[in-house]
């Protein structure tokens, strides 16, 4: 048993033996929450005897004892969280018809487990406790938990996962890359859930041949991709590196012109007679939340006049190919960060 995990469990157990209410403060990552849930079992706590809460911004209730769960930066905490997750997966797939028929995971892709990753990416203050109650229900009810969709604990958990799923879609939709002077691409995006680790693989597939980085200043996370790689490397960032990544002040020469074309294209596609005043409600805002508009060049101010790259100057017959124009052979390996926390 990892020392810090065992010590934490012992501390929780001691507090519970004194009949004190306990708040177990954990890191708001999947590893942090799952490790904390495992600790509640080690401490023989019953549901309702303690609550899980985000360590960041925790407000203890009157008389509540706060116990800090071990950090997921420690490898033993991650290993313990992995044990909890595999135990949960084993339990909820026991008796599962798909498992019995040999269809899992090929058919359902372990969705019952993937939901935990989704829910843990939520920014909701109640996320650790909602996941805690769901995981406990799963251990108690095994595969039946999948069908208890009207149970409050499952419904709350599904709401979190569904919200994150929606935010993943926003990430797919509204991340905007900029072409940098060194030939790489960079994007800054601030979703309302920690979706970059979940969506990094999507962008790695879409941009397989490119070197790129996506930074999320809100969650202090970035995904780095090397040319040709199937996956991204994920890193938690410190303030300085984050600022440098988000600033993006070293754009490629063609970037302003391409942005101007995108803006012009966007404005050209709008049809008259169908806007908010004609419809009674704002359909665009419904699909494109205003909190994300800052990063969308098509909605920004008019782009200043930009120099025309050779391939777009109208002499189309002898234009160079894009891949030849980009310095692909001179690309450097991706940036690495000392605080790499895991993979997507």
């Amino acid at each position, binding site marked *: 048993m990892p020392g810090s995990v065992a010590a934490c469990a012992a501390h929780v157990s001691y507090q519970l033996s004194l009949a004190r209410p306990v708040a177990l403060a954990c890191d708001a990552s999947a590893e942090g929450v799952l490790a904390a849930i495992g600790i509640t079992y080690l401490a023989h706590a019953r549901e309702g005897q303690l609550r899980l809460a985000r360590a960041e911004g925790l407000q203890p209730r009157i008389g509540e004892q706060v116990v800090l769960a071990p950090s997921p930066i420690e490898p033993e905490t991650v290993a313990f969280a992995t044990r909890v997750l595999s135990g949960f997966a084993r339990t909820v797939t026991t008796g599962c018809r798909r498992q019995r028929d040999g269809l899992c995971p090929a*058919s359902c892709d372990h*969705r019952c487990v993937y939901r935990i990753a989704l829910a843990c990416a939520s920014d909701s203050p109640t996320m650790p406790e909602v996941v805690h109650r769901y995981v406990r229900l799963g251990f108690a009810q095994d595969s*039946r938990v999948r*069908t208890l*969709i*009207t149970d409050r604990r499952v419904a709350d958990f*599904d709401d979190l*996962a*569904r919200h994150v799923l929606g935010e993943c*879609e926003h990430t*797919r*939709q509204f*991340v*905007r*890359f900029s*072409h940098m002077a060194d030939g790489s*691409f960079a*994007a800054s995006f601030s979703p309302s859930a920690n979706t970059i680790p979940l969506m990094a693989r999507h962008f*790695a*597939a*879409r*941009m*397989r*041949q*490119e070197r790129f980085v996506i930074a999320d200043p809100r969650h202090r996370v970035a995904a780095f991709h090397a040319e040709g790689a199937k996956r991204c490397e994920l890193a938690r960032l410190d303030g300085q590196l984050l600022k440098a990544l988000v600033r993006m002040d070293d754009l490629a020469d*063609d970037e302003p012109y*391409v942005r*101007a*074309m995108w803006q*012009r*294209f*966007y404005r*050209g*596609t*709008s*049809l008259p*007679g*169908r*806007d*908010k*005043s*004609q*419809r*009674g*409600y*704002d*359909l*665009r805002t*419904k*699909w*494109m939340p205003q909190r994300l508009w800052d990063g969308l060049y*098509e909605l920004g101010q008019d782009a200043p006049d930009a120099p*025309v790259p050779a391939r*777009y*100057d*109208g002499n*189309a017959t002898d234009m160079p*190919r*894009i*891949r030849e124009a980009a310095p692909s052979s001179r690309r450097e390996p991706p940036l690495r960060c000392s605080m790499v926390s895991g993979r997507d």
Partner: protein
Amino acid sequence: MDTLAKLDILAEAARYDVACTSSGVSRPAKAGMVGNASPAGCCHSFTPDGRCVTLLKVLMSNVCSYDCAYCVNRRQATCARATFAPRELAELTVDFYKRNYIEGLFLSSGVLGTPDATTERMIECLRVLREELLFNGYVHAKVIPGTSPELVDSLGRLADRLSVNLELPSAGSLSRLCPEKQRQQVLGPMGQIRHTRDQEETALLASGKRTRRRALPTHEQEGLALGAGANRLTLRPRSQVSARRRSFAPAGQSTQLIIGATPETDNHILQLSQSLYQHFDLKRVFFSAYMPMVADAGLPARETPVPLRREHRLYQADWLMRYYAFTPDELATPEEPWLDLDVDPKLAWALRHIDRFPVEVMDASLTDLLRVPGIGPVGARRILAARRSGPLSFEDLRALKVTLKRACHFLTVAGKRDESCPLDVGLIREKVIADARQSAYNRTRRMAEGQLSLF
């Protein structure tokens, strides 16, 4: 003229084509290639009027030899003209794609000389895109009516989806407003696309390779999924061969009809759509509310409001046909051939058939649940999944995200009616219609459309 100036002209010229989906095909990323394609597609932006921007939708050229009365690019129109060079457009597509602005290219064109000459130019653009720039993303190409079959075939090998615009809902309207187009020039390529896809499917099934799709999950299993997965929830039979295995138009074909420029009724349009789905295996029929931009004796006057609500109701009716197994005559009957603009078609149907309600949630079939206003394909499947665990209540239905405001009048749950729901059929009808008419959408559109009838 630089590309920015051309884009200005050719994006605006293409905006009347409403189709802008990037769905229907799954193509994984490949080493050395740019991009991939996902079955659900992705909307990367939304125009001020709320339409999705998923593809770089442009014309190859807005120079046109045809003189269709409703078209802003018609031969006689006095507007700026431009034409993309094939490579120029291909480069632009890749540049936008790499910045995550789009999922791919939607390529249409005015008739640049002849349909064949235009299509050859489009094919060259797609060839550069696919073979030289190694673009692996989504391409939707428009077939110009009158194009030779061999060129349609070449186009279909490079594009994911093809579409041939029917434009007007009857042969009479087409010959009146588009004198150079004949109905057969539109239906011919549609038939060819269907035939080629069928041939490929037969060959793939006969080849014995792993082409068959995985068995569909049961409705209960679908109800346990988090997302909507709407494409899976249709009741129509689906192809036995996965789109991924196909080489010719793997995402199928679609078409577009202009609504409100000619006098055809909603019943006529829905019958036509149904027929197109059945005969040509279309994935979508798009409706485009006519915007009076051109003065012509055969068209509605310039000040006529855009029939936005009619377009909306037709889309709803189309959805009901594809996902809920409604027939056109159930939605707009031959006796009452126009859809009710104030009430959505499903609610209107339910009110006309109130004797079929209430439906008991605990033992209703999927098709019966799908007929209840406020219950959609996802909600119906969630109910099927949830009721296996025990009796449900109205509170449970709320947890399943069923829209009870509408559904409560048409349901019993374990034998009980909702307390807030009137028992009298007349009162239900009155309340439901009053609620629908008071919506911001209906109020705004009534003011915009006034009392003008379409014809």
